[in-house]
């Protein structure tokens, strides 16, 4: 899960403008609204975006603000119009690689970080096929799904799941494998 804060540049020809990002969670805005915390990654930065994933560590609304700095001059703060809550995160379908090792149907999922789990659905491609489901706790490790029968075709799809925000992605594109050939995206 990655959360990026982005902003428009301050036009200042031939000068390097720096930016500083600060945040406050619901606690700070409720109990001590004057308190803002410097972002872990961007205090300061010369980029136009900031990875605030490590700052957003609770599923509550967070306010963000950014200001420009040029030498001793600093701009006013620009504050995010609406607080951000990580439970509004839109997860993209995970990338996966489906292969057959001998008789074994194997899937390898993209490593999206420690907060991700995956729901893998697989079936033998035939009329009235039964779908099987396997929960994969982390990416980047090949997982054995099924021992295949020669000549049969097997298909796989997967979705990502983040427990911390109670959200899952759409399913990935279906990939099918038959005993003789390579995986065939459908």
């Amino acid at each position, binding site marked *: 899960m990655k959360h990026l804060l982005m902003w428009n540049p301050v036009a200042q020809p031939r000068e390097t403008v720096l930016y500083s990002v600060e945040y406050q969670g*619901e606690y700070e805005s409720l109990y001590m609204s004057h308190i803002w915390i410097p972002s872990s990654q961007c205090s300061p930065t010369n980029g136009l975006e900031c990875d605030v994933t490590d700052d957003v560590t609770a599923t*509550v609304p967070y306010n963000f603000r950014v200001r420009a700095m040029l030498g001793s001059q600093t701009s006013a703060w620009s504050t995010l119009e609406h607080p951000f809550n990580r439970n509004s995160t839109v997860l993209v379908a995970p990338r996966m690689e489906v292969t057959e090792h001998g008789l074994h149907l194997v899937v390898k999922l993209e490593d999206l970080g420690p907060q991700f789990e995956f729901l893998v659905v697989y079936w033998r491609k035939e009329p009235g096929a039964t779908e099987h489901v396997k929960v994969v706790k982390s990416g980047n490790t090949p997982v054995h799904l099924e021992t295949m029968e020669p000549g049969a075709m097997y298909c796989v799809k997967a979705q990502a799941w983040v427990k911390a925000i109670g959200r899952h992605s759409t399913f990935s594109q279906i990939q099918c494998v038959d005993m003789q050939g390579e995986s065939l995206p459908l």
Partner: protein
Amino acid sequence: EFRFGPCRVEGVVLPELWEAFWAVKNTVQAQDDITSVRLLKAQVLQNVSDAESCYLVHSLLKFYLNTVFKNYHSKIAKVKILKSFSSLANNFIDIVSKLQPSKDKDMLSISESAHRRFMLFRRAFKQMDTEVALVKAFGEVDILLTWMQKFYQL
């Protein structure tokens, strides 16, 4: 998710809370000179029934938000401590907002039992010098998290 009896809390990653507290543990507990006193004593947290647990955790977390964190905040000088403190406080707010302790009359004796436990803690807190009590209570967040962990399911 947390399951405090009938109360369920999803979307909180307990390891994130532990990570936040470990980052400040040494700094905070080093400020606590009175090691002979414990606010979250055994009578407060031991043998808590599932039914009581929702009432008790609700009272304890609200106290931490409204009293301990609110007043401890001014002692924080380092940004690193501030970040961990913010992570803990905001996760406590998330938990409290999702807890719905039942107000049914037939739960009265259970809620009163939980309240007696909470009052043991609160009385011990009030009996100490405020500054000392704040440091001690914040330093005992690990005791609180250890107890909460019993109700956490992966």
